[in-house]
C-alpha cells in the first residue's frame, strides 16, 4: 500500500468527534434536550432469508450528524442491513431475524413499536429515483398529508422549503404541478430526497443513491449530504470507495454478512486494523 494520508476537508478532527462512541457517559445530556441526539444502535442482529444466513451477528452504532458509509463487496449484506433499519425488509419472502435495533431507545423489532413511526424517522433514497406517480408538488406533500398536515398554506411552505433545501426550487418552481416523471433523473433523485426530508426524519438512508446518476448529478447529491449532515444522521451504502473517501465521516466495512471493521473514516482509511479491510482498500488506492 502506498503512503497515503487521507483527510476529509469537510470534517472536524475525528478524535473529539468520536469520543462519545467509546464513552458510556453521554455528554449530550448535559447540553439539554434542545439538541436531541438521533440514535441508532444495532446489537447482535442475525438475518436469514430462507436458509441463507445474510447478516451475521451485526453490532454497530451510527453516530449522529455524520455521514456513515457502509462499504464492502457486492452481496455482503450492505443493502439488506440498510433496509432492516426501517424494516422494509419485512416484505421479503422467507425472512427471519433476531437481535435488536434500537432507534432512539426503542427496539424496532418489538411488537408494540409502530412501524410507520420508525419509517417516518428514516428518509429512504433508493438506487434509482422513484418518484410517486403524481405531480412534483404532490410528491413532496404526500408524506406530510399521511402524517396529518392538511393546512394548504403550511404544505406550500414545506414544498418550497424542502425544494430549496435540495436546490431544486429554482429549476421547478414554475412547474410544480407537472408530473414528477418529467424531471431528469438527477432532478428526480433530489426530489426523492426532498420528499423524504418533508416528513422530518432523523436519519437519511441512501442505498447507492448516486449509482444511477451522471457524475454531475451525483456530485450534487454528495454535496447535499455534506450539507445535510448538520441536521441528520446519514447512512450511505456505497459501491464506490472514492465516494466514501470523499464524504464519509464514519465507515463500516462489511464482508460476507459480517461487520469486519467500523470506525472513523480517517482511521479506517489510513490505518485499518483488519487484514481484510486493508486488502479491500488497497484495491481502491493502488
Amino acid at each position, binding site marked *: 500500500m502506498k503512503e497515503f494520508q487521507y483527510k476529509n476537508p469537510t470534517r472536524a478532527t475525528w478524535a473529539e468527534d468520536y469520543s462519545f462512541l467509546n464513552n458510556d457517559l453521554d455528554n449530550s445530556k448535559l447540553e439539554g434536550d434542545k439538541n436531541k441526539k438521533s440514535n441508532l444502535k444495532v446489537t447482535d442482529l442475525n438475518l436469514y432469508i430462507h436458509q441463507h444466513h445474510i447478516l451475521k451477528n451485526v453490532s454497530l452504532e451510527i453516530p449522529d450528524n455524520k455521514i456513515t458509509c457502509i462499504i464492502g463487496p457486492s452481496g455482503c449484506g450492505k443493502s439488506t442491513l440498510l433496509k432492516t433499519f426501517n424494516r*422494509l425488509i419485512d416484505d421479503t419472502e422467507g425472512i427471519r431475524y433476531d437481535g435488536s435495533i434500537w432507534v432512539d431507545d426503542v427496539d424496532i423489532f418489538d411488537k408494540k413499536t409502530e412501524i*410507520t*413511526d420508525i*419509517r417516518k424517522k428514516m428518509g429512504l433514497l433508493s438506487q434509482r429515483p422513484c418518484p*410517486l*406517480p403524481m405531480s412534483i408538488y404532490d410528491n413532496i406533500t*404526500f*408524506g406530510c398529508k*399521511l402524517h396529518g398536515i392538511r393546512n394548504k398554506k403550511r404544505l406550500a411552505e414545506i414544498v418550497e422549503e424542502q425544494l430549496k433545501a435540495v436546490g431544486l426550487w429554482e429549476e421547478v418552481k414554475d412547474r410544480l404541478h407537472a408530473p414528477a416523471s418529467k424531471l431528469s433523473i438527477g432532478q428526480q433523485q433530489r426530489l426523492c430526497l426532498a420528499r423524504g426530508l418533508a416528513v422530518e426524519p432523523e436519519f437519511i438512508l441512501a442505498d447507492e443513491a448516486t449509482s444511477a446518476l451522471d457524475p454531475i448529478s451525483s456530485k450534487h447529491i454528495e454535496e447535499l449530504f455534506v450539507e445535510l449532515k448538520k441536521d441528520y444522521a446519514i447512512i450511505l451504502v456505497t459501491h464506490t470507495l472514492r465516494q466514501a473517501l470523499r464524504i464519509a465521516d464514519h465507515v463500516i466495512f462489511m464482508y460476507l454478512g459480517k461487520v469486519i471493521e467500523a470506525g472513523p473514516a480517517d482511521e479506517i482509511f489510513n490505518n485499518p486494523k483488519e487484514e481484510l479491510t486493508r486488502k479491500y482498500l488497497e484495491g481502491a488506492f493502488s
Partner: protein
Amino acid sequence: MNRILKNKIAAGMMFSLTLASISLVVLIGMGLYLKSAPIFKEHSLWELISSADWQPSSGKFGFLPFIGGTLWITGIAVILALPVALLTSIFLSEHSKPYVKKWIFPALDILAGIPSVVYGVWGILLVVPWVSEVLAPHFVEYATGYSTLSGGIVLGVMILPLLISLFVEIFAAVPRDLRDAALSLGATRWQTSKLVILRKTLPGLLAAVMLAISRAFGETIAVLMVCGNIPLLPHSLFDSCYPLPALIANNYGEMLSVPMYESALMLAAFFLFIVVLIFNTSSRAVIYKLERKFQ
C-alpha cells in the same frame, strides 16, 4: 438460399398470416352488415334502436328492450364484481402470504374454467330462488326471480375470476421500489395501495374492466337461463329482461320464415360487434391519455 432472402420469406409469410387474422374482423363485420342490410330498407336505424315494440310476425322490430337488457345486466355485473375483485386482488398482491396465493390462484383458475352452462344451472338453483324468495319480497309484491338482478349476479360471478387475475397481474407489475418509497415515508399498506398503487395502475385497471365488460356483453347461455327472456324494457331489478345474445341464441334457426327476421337477428349480432369494437377502441384511447398523464 441466402440469409436475407430467408428472412424476407419468413417475414412475408408471418405478415400474411397476421393480415389474414386481422381481415377476419373486417370480414365478420362486413358479413353481419350485409346480412342485416335488408332491414334498413323498411326501417331506419333510429327507429330500430329507439322502439320498444318487438313483434316480428307483424314486422315490428324494436331493439330497445334487448339493448336495455344487455346494458342493465352488464352494469349490475360490473358494479357487483368490481369492488370484490379490487379488494381481493389488493389483498392477494399486497397483503397475503405466498402460501395463501398458492391456494387461491388455482381456485380462481377453476372458477374461470367452469363452463358457462354450469353457472346457468347454479343460477337457477340458487340465485333465482334467493332473489324471488328472500330479496324481492322486501321491494315488490311478486317476482319470479328470473330477473335482471339474477342475470347480473350470475354474470358478475362469471367475470370475477377474470377481473381478479387481470388485476393481480397489473399489481404485480408495479416495481417494488415504488412501494418502498411510499412505505418509507410512513404510509401504511392500505395507504400505499390506495394512494400510490391504484393511482399508478389506473390505466391498466380501466383496460381490464373494459375487457371484462366486452366479455360480459357477449356472455350468452348462463344469462339467458336466469334472466327470464321477456322482450320488455325492465323497469326494476326484479323485472325480467332479454339481452341481445340471448335473443340471437334463442331464435336463430327458428321462425326464419318470418320476413326480415333473420335480418333483424343479424342486426342484433352487428350491434354486439359494434359495441365491443367501440369499447375496445375507446378503452385504448382512455388508457393512452391516462398513461401520458400519470406516468
